[in-house]
């Protein structure tokens, strides 16, 4: 009988203790995985501007960057940086909501162009800087001011009216201009795309040979790359980025969108590629 009383007492004590002391020992671990600021999750997009760079190198001053925040806890932050054809995982920490420069995130370090991002989020702006790990690359520091922009695939998106779609990277040098003194100097000729890049949609219409025959290589390339841009492909070539980085709706999200392309888009890409090759081989040569 006595034993039973002890047992009951013991049970009573234990249960009593449970009621009185709720979860204190587990508090820290729960807090560590508790997600903070989920309203900051998603893509932050804007210009990635060179600040410290090798003056003698030909660099791209501005690229469009997407810093995509995936998870924020007290212990770690997981994110992804997508810029200039390079998608890199970011990990690091978030110091505290009130401290300055509260995010410090690093890229893995196994890529020549990896570095560390330091930024804070204030209101609707994420701003900060990036410094490279390797100091022997042309650009060692870049700054950015980004705003939240959600990526969504929309096949109807078209290039905007305002762009002039002139290829600034591959000028053709021609000795043409003659000044009054009889001097000649080299004049750079830049390829300009036609109106077709704003009207032909390779994501919604089955393109036909007939509709492509009068297009130059630059038109065909832009029409094809617009399909990839709609899927958020990050372009490795600066000659392609020059047309898409300034486009408001364009958000680079992935290095590989081949799995996202629709059958229609895949067919159009094959056709456009064939015409590009033909244009490349034949446009200005003797033959056809």
């Amino acid at each position, binding site marked *: 009988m006595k034993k039973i009383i002890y047992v009951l007492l013991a049970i009573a004590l234990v249960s009593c203790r449970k009621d009185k002391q709720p979860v204190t020992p587990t508090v820290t671990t729960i807090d560590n995985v508790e997600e903070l600021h989920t309203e900051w999750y998603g893509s932050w997009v804007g210009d990635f501007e060179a600040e410290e760079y090798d003056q003698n190198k030909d660099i791209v001053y501005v690229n469009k960057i997407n810093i995509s925040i995936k998870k924020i806890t007290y212990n770690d932050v997981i994110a992804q940086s997508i810029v200039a054809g390079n998608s890199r995982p970011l990990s690091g920490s978030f110091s505290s909501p009130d401290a300055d420069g509260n995010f410090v995130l690093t890229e893995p370090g196994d890529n020549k162009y990896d570095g560390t991002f330091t930024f804070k989020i204030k209101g609707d702006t994420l701003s900060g800087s990036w410094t490279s790990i390797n100091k022997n690359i042309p650009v060692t520091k870049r700054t950015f001011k980004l705003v939240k922009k959600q990526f969504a695939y929309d096949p109807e998106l078209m290039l905007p009216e305002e762009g002039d779609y002139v290829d600034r990277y591959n000028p053709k040098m021609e000795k043409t201009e003659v000044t009054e003194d009889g001097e000649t100097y080299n004049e750079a*000729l830049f*390829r300009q795309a*036609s109106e077709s890049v704003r009207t032909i949609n390779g994501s919604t219409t089955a393109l*036909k*040979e*007939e509709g*492509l*025959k*009068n*297009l*130059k290589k630059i038109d065909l390339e832009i029409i094809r790359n617009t399909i990839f841009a709609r899927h958020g492909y990050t372009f490795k070539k600066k000659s392609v980025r020059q047309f898409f980085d300034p486009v408001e709706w364009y958000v680079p999200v992935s290095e590989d969108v081949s799995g996202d392309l629709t059958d229609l888009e895949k067919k159009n890409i094959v056709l456009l590629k*064939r*015409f590009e*090759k*033909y*244009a490349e*081989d*034949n*446009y*200005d*040569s*003797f*033959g*056809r």
Partner: protein
Amino acid sequence: MVPQSSKANSILKWIWRLAFSIFFYLMLAITLRYFPINPDVAFLQIKQSEISSVPAYFSVFYIHVCSSAFTLLAGFTQFSNTILRKHPSIHKRIGIVYVYTVILLSAPSGIYIGYFANGGITSKISFMLLGILWFLFTILGIRMIKIGRTSAHEQWMLRSFALAFSAITLRLWKVILVFLFHPPPMDVYRIIAWLGWIPNLLIIEWYIAKKYKK
């Protein structure tokens, strides 16, 4: 005065021979791009709708490409007075090859593929008309020699060859137009479709008039 002009003439002849050899070589190179036979090569890359929907297009296209190279050979021999005087059998044999190739293969195939030409109605009319005239001039040329009218024969054959030579001039105009104005490819095509042979005919008419109607 006389020796000077004949010297100038012979220089001109050599320039013509050299230029013609270079262009003949380029035309051969263009033809060889179609070998091994492939339905998706060179020009055919932008003719896939015709390849898939018009069964005869592919073979007729190949007939045109292959046979036409032979017609240009005539340019080396047929207008040489030396060959005509010293080796008339060479003139006759190559002439026969030229005539049969044009009227049986090159001109009919040219008219046929002209019907499917790029650049719409403008270039279709041009290429078909070119093919029809080429056929007629060649027939007239052979008819004239059969009835012994040698100067009429020469005149019609000059016209016929001026049209055959459009294979070269239209491609030359293309290079010039693209170099100068960078127009869209089909705009170039519509222009060269006509520019390729009309000036040739005008030049040869002027030459004939100068030579025969003094």
